[in-house]
């Protein structure tokens, strides 16, 4: 049961822990610490209300009314706590773009992802993919000579990854994930059986398994194998799952409506919103909050307050009443420990605005995403696969994610999209317009011809049912110059808080990876006997897609039109490490500079491999929760304070 409070009610009060942000990381931490009876205050900048049935239905209606079902389509814009939208970006030429909205962008390429400031954070619109990282992903510097190594290994995180998989509520095939090499235990059981693979997945299995594709960039042949994707989506409880209590696993459904949403029913709209809430979201965890946890929405933290001796004292925040206007009142609240869990980019902005944790100069640096190449094709007429059914993707091709090929190009994961050409072209709406000839030609004149009536209905149905798409996500490694900065003198939001300024670029490894991915997609389409319709270059109307470039990895390889989309897996803005000079936080996500300030989330990750980062982030949050509990326990034992590592650290400074 979530106990809500307001900014004015907590003004001037003291808590054991303040958590900034109510997304996955913040909710996991608050739940964990609340159960240990620590007094926790969660401050959420965005709007609430979705924790009730009516409130959630309102977001579903907002989604329905949106013309473009982009990832933030279910949430109204906010003047008080603004957030970026993928629709903020526009291409203005072959290698130029403009942006409006929350971000300023200065890089040669746009950072093309978004996030959400609302109760539950970006965990409300995430897709729900929870693949584990490969053990080799944690040490790319050592293994392959690029990027940054983690101060922990996959084994160190294993226990917390398991706990995260349970708390998030994961459906997957443990044996298959063991064969893939991400789960060490061959007997591992997920709490729910895997989400049934789509019919399209079955076709891919049939046509691709065991076939070989040569990657000319990696100079290596790969044997294709389709693997299921572990997902945070309600499926059949796994009878083999056992937590020692003897109780079977019960899927958790909708908040505010008992016994609802305990199975995925195939709404096929995971991102932006699962109408039945079978896709897990942080509000589920918030239902578990004990009475010692207080949660306040519409409270935008503007600054972390410095305390004595390198510690922090609390936070300053502004509470607003109406998301449409930024009028607000300032308050302060204090705590023994402050945790920033506000999203990697917002965490960086907060640390920079507070002038904290930045002795390494690395706050905001090493911004990463998974630049994603889209390739789309049409299956043969006699092999319709039925697009736009089921979760967005239920299987993938994993062989390009690992191995020595990583020395030559960025590794990538191929998602098999169940939603046709939705992401790449805006199908099926765009398919209707194209078949009609709607919208005029490049000169704005009415097009000739076009299909109508029974022929339109028939041809459209046939065409859409044959649409397939590969979403190929590159690993992007940590680079100092991909960064978030602020310039409060020039760029502030309506409330007066600094807006993120982003400088983003793709290095040659990523470009080589995108090149290889495009080549691989061509080979796969050939094996499927599908007709490639991918057009990453000049469009019919003469425009260039966002993120367009041409590239050749060298040698005798011809230049190729390439492009990418941003799935918004922002990471790396306060990376963890053992050395204070090169990293911002330690292996427990505690800032090196301030013993009682934590920065948690994907921002702490020194590399993100080719796995959607939420699961790893959640595991890190659980790890931090244990450490924070220890810190607090020590702080609350006056006799031993002098010997505690906190006090020791303070004394050293």
């Amino acid at each position, binding site marked *: 049961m979530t106990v809500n409070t307001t900014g004015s009610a907590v003004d001037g009060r003291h808590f054991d822990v303040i958590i900034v942000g109510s997304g996955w990381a913040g909710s996991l931490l608050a739940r964990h610490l609340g159960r240990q009876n620590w007094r926790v205050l969660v401050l959420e900048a965005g709007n609430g209300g979705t924790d009730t049935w009516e409130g959630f239905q309102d977001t579903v209606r907002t989604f329905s009314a949106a013309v473009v079902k982009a990832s933030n389509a279910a949430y109204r814009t906010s003047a008080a706590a603004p957030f970026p939208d993928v629709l903020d970006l526009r291409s203005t030429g072959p290698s130029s773009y403009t942006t409006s909205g929350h971000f300023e962008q200065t890089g040669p390429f746009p950072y093309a992802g978004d996030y959400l400031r609302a109760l539950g954070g970006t965990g409300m619109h995430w897709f729900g993919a929870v693949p584990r990282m490969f053990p080799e992903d944690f040490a790319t510097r050592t293994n392959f000579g690029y990027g940054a190594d983690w101060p922990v290994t996959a084994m160190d995180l294993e226990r917390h990854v398991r706990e995260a998989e349970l708390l998030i509520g994961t459906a997957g095939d443990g044996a298959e994930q063991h064969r893939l090499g991400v789960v060490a235990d061959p007997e591992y059981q997920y709490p729910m059986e895997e989400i049934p693979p789509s019919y399209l997945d079955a076709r891919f299995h049939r046509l691709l398994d065991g076939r070989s594709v040569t990657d000319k960039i990696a100079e290596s042949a790969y044997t294709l194998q389709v693997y299921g994707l572990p997902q945070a989506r309600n499926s059949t409880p796994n009878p083999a799952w056992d937590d020692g209590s003897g109780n079977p696993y019960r899927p958790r459904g909708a908040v505010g409506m008992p016994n609802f949403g305990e199975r995925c029913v195939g709404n096929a709209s995971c991102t932006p919103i699962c109408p039945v809430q079978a896709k897990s979201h942080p509000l589920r965890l918030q239902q578990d909050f004990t009475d010692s946890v207080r949660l306040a929405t519409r409270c935008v933290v503007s600054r972390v307050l410095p305390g004595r001796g390198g510690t922090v004292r609390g936070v300053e925040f502004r509470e607003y009443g109406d998301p449409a206007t930024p009028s607000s009142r300032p308050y302060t609240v204090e705590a023994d420990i402050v945790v920033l869990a506000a999203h990697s980019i917002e965490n960086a902005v907060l640390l920079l605005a507070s002038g904290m944790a930045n002795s390494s100069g690395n706050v905001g640096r090493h911004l990463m995403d998974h630049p994603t190449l889209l390739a789309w094709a049409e299956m043969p007429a006699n092999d319709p696969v*039925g697009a736009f059914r*089921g979760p967005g993707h239920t299987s993938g091709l994993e062989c390009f994610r690992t191995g020595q090929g990583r020395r030559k190009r960025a590794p990538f994961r191929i998602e098999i999209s169940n939603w046709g050409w939705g992401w790449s072209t805006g199908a099926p709406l765009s398919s209707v317009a194209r078949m009609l000839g709607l919208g005029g030609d490049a000169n704005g004149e009415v097009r000739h011809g076009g299909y109508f009536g029974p022929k339109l209905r028939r041809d459209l149905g046939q065409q859409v049912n044959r649409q397939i798409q590969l979403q190929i996500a590159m690993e992007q490694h940590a680079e100092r110059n991909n960064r978030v900065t602020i310039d409060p003198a020039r760029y502030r939001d309506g409330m007066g808080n600094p807006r993120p300024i982003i400088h983003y670029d793709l290095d040659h490894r990523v470009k080589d990876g995108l090149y290889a991915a495009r080549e691989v997609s061509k080979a796969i389409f050939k094996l499927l006997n599908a007709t490639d319709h991918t057009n990453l270059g000049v469009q019919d109307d003469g425009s260039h897609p966002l993120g367009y470039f041409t590239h050749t990895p060298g040698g005798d390889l011809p230049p190729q039109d390439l492009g990418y989309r941003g799935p918004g897996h922002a990471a790396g803005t306060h990376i963890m490490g053992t050395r204070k000079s090169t990293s911002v936080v330690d292996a427990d996500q505690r800032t090196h500079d301030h013993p009682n300030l934590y920065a948690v989330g994907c921002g702490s990750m020194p590399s993100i491999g080719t796995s959607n980062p939420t699961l790893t982030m959640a595991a890190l949050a659980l790890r931090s929760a244990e450490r924070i509990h220890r810190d607090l326990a020590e702080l609350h034992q006056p006799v031993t304070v002098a010997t505690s590592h906190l006090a020791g650290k303070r004394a050293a400074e």
Partner: protein
Amino acid sequence: MTDGTNAGAAAPNADTHLEAPSAPLERFVRLCVPLTGFSAFDLHGTGMAPLYLDTTRRELGEGHLENFLSRWEQAQAEGKGPAELPPTEREIARALVYLWYTGAWPRIAPAVHAELRRDRPNGESMASATSYPEGLVWRAFGGHPGGAKPPGFGTWSYPPPTLPTEAEIAESITQSAATATRPYDPTAYGALANLLDEESVPPHLLPGACVTRSVPPSAVPCAAPPPETGSGSPAKDVSER
């Protein structure tokens, strides 16, 4: 928008407007049938017909709408298809189909937008939050709108449904038009019910008493034990249906 210059075009049909309140809507739907490839039954069945007529009226203005409808009526009388309409009407026809297929009024060709002198920006907008789930495009490929009308757990593992051919679609529209003019006749349904009198379904194919909700349908016993093999043809007939 009521455009003064086109008010005269609407006047000749004023009588038909008076005949019945639903006449303009009936006409609008009837004229949309050959454009969309869905029967009047289907179009009315979306529940969106009045909204779409209003939306079109608002987007085009009463005069332009009337102009389009009468020209399209005339073209049909001359045996022409929508693709043979003059450019402006052709683009309006496309916009209408797009509205029915997606629930949204589209961005139309800038040339037509300028010619119509519309008083609103030329952009795409959803007719309403309820129109999106009623888009016909989803039905065209045998699917369901993303985020609405979910088909159930695991349905995505099955092959997609077979779609009707163009001839079958045309045939179903003709049939629907024929039955739609017939008034509702309860005896027709009575006659249908007579086909399945109580005796025609043998008890072993009917479910028995369902004691509690915790009994899954698969575990509900039959009303009677199955007969011995070859016991009678009526049972076989029904099971084959």
